[in-house]
């Protein structure tokens, strides 16, 4: 085990490692400048538990049970009868001339089917297919993929289907948000594109390891969603080239976890010290002190993207970043709200670096007072 791994394990303590999945990998793009998140994710620490240990409510990751049920129902419908609906879509909407296809079920055979053996099966099936020149299309349902993240092999178990036609693999991603008159929620499409990019990259890595051409995996992803207000699936091609580039650069950056580790004290630990009943016994104040040892890069967007959003918000209380990115930019590098107000109202003399921002704030405050004073 490398020194880095040892340190990361020490940070996590006794808690089981929370592995990356496509969703967490895609989320790397949300705030790549945040050292706190980078480190906790690299160490496989459950950030939700940390937040709970600190007594802060988590607002993300909660999905309505009703929505989950509907999503499952939709996916089942798409895959029913050997993916009959999906094949219809691939023929009609994507213009793929699929006459007849093979269906390769890589779902777990039973509850005892271990992920390692599934991975082996998936890898074998995809490799055999990649090497064959058979013109018939093949669907791979639920393959297990693997991606190297920060030197560690991360297994990804996507709810997806890979489709091979000629010598091209396409990732098929089934989502339950609607495509209404050809448009869909741009945030949800973006999330789907980011996740798909993880799958594309993982599959490319798999082919490359097997000595095959990684470009066999298309950067055009097939997105399958319900059409309009119905439960009927409709498909759309999604170009994920940009997401792939983003993901690649995030993964490159993650190699630098080592340099982040250099910035934190050697005895730092985020161990919650769970008791036998799984309750954390660590003193919240002590835990908070440990968390705050690693710098965060908070912005309000974190509240919707990271389990620690609420933690970092209360830490940043009184600081300009809690007001939003634009405000921070407008205030010209002044970090504290109190300082900004005191500079604006003339209660404080600016430092050397604050003169310009201070002049602007004072002018703005003067105009504000004049305008409001006239009607007061």
């Amino acid at each position: 085990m490398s020194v880095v791994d040892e340190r990361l394990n020490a940070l996590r303590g006794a808690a089981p490692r929370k592995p990356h999945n496509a969703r967490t990998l895609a989320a790397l793009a949300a705030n790549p400048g945040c050292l706190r998140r980078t480190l906790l994710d690299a160490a496989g620490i459950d950030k939700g538990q940390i937040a709970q240990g600190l007594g802060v409510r988590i607002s993300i990751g909660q999905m309505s049970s009703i929505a989950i049920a509907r999503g499952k129902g939709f996916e089942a419908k798409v895959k029913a009868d050997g993916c009959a609906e999906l094949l219809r879509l691939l023929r009609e909407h994507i213009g793929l001339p699929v006459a007849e296809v093979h269906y390769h079920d890589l779902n777990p055979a039973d509850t005892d089917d271990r992920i390692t053996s599934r991975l082996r099966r998936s890898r074998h099936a995809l490799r055999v297919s990649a090497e064959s020149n058979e013109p018939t299309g093949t669907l791979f349902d639920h393959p297990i993929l693997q991606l190297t993240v920060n030197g560690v092999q991360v297994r990804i178990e996507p709810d997806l289907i890979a489709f091979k036609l000629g010598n091209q693999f396409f990732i098929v991603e089934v989502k339950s948000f609607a495509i209404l008159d050809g448009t869909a929620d741009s945030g949800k499409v973006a999330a789907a594109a980011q996740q798909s990019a993880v799958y594309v990259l993982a599959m490319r890595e798999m082919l490359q390891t097997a000595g095959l051409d990684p470009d066999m995996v298309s950067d055009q992803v097939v997105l399958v969603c319900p059409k309009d207000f119905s439960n009927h699936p409709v498909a759309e091609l999604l170009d994920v080239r940009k997401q792939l580039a983003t993901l690649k650069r995030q993964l490159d950056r993650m190699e630098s976890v080592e340099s982040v580790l250099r910035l934190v004290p050697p005895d730092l630990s985020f161990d919650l010290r769970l008791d036998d009943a799984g309750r954390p016994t660590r003193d919240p104040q002590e835990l908070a002190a440990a968390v705050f040892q690693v710098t965060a890069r908070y912005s309000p967007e974190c509240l919707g993207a990271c389990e620690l959003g609420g933690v970092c918000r209360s830490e940043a209380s009184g600081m300009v970043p809690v007001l939003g990115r634009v405000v921070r930019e407008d205030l010209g590098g002044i970090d504290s709200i109190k300082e900004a107000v005191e500079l604006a109202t003339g209660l404080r003399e600016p430092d050397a670096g604050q003169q310009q921002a201070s002049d602007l704030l004072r002018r703005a405050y003067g105009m504000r007072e004049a305008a409001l004073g006239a009607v007061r």
Partner: protein
Amino acid sequence: MTSPQERAEIKTAEILTAFTNGGRRGVVVDSPPGAGKSTLVGRIAAEIATAGDTVVVVAQTNAQVDDLVAKIATRLPGLIVGRLSRDGYLPPPTLLLPNVQVASRVDDLPDCRVVVGTAAKWAQVRSARTWPWAVVDEAYQMRSDLLLLIVPLFKQMLFVGDPGQLDPFSPIDGERWSGLPWDPMQSAVAVLLRNNPDIVPHELPVTWRLPASATRLVQTAFYPFSEFTPGTHDDERTIHVPTVGIRRTVADEVIDLAADTGWGFLELPHRNTLRTDAETVAATADVAVRLLQRGTETVCEHAPGGRRLTAARIAVGAAHRDQVAAITRALRARGEIADGIRVDTANRLQGAEFDITVILHPLSGRIDATPFHLTPGRLCVLASRHRHACIVVGRRGIPELLDAHPGTEPVHLKDFIKFPDGWEANQAVLAHLSNHRVSALH
């Protein structure tokens, strides 16, 4: 091996044939910076006019129109060139030519073989007339909604433009049209190509403006799918700056570096600042003024014996108007030597050409990169205006800022995807600049 001149000539002839003999409704020409776009427009208009047909030229701004009218009228002394204008327009001295007519109604220009006007003006024309030929200049700067209005006026259209420059702008959130093949927020050429996939753009092969030292970078960073070459060799374009003795400043250092290599990056210490950061503004102005104070000379194919760099051949570029105002003031404070230096935003520098440019890096001192900053066209315009050298001024920390930029922009189905990505283009330029860095440690 053909010479750049020959290659450009072959391409021009090919375009002319495709347009006038190809029987196509639309022909598109992509032009990298300084590849002779307006020369091509002028030449094609002149050839059609000389052959006896009437041709319309559409440009995007009044300055572009004036420029084209002067060029075409000089080229065609025997024919009358019309300048379609707004009411109350006063032609600049360059247009006071015997064969130029000015009118605000196209029906008042019946004898003109060439009529030039802005797209906005053509979009107002309510004439029963149509014209057989139209050449649209700077077509990537035109919004597709304007194109919708002018298309019915013309039978065959040639679109010439630079795909790497800034996209047209609207303050409106155009989400409701996202993915539509006629999205009115997109450029005229983007919509035209999406709806007519059979049109394959021609590409001008030679940049006459960019020196060899800039061509590769600009091409890889901003035109990843194009292949163009510089019209000159490395040693055809040189800069001589008399050496300074004692008290050599960082401005001098970065000037010397840029004189040698074509690029210089004056890096100030890291700090988060207002956009109009006084130190960066001062450093930018200093570099521009020092270029003149030191008696810089440029040598090029037009002046093989060298010529003195004048203020008019220098541009200072920035992203925002308040930065432009601050730099203008800083230059004014440095005395009359700076009179005549063009200071402007990327938007307004589009299409212009200078010998040396000094740029305030759009991300200098920022905390976050925004889509505004990351629009590749903005940096592309700033980094491709020069014939000799480009000096960038900015604070330390820009690569870190780009690394921290969230990659979570919304994605629309069937959207117009444009390459390169602004993030990657910015990184490519910074990687290049890191080898041309002079640190100012205050």
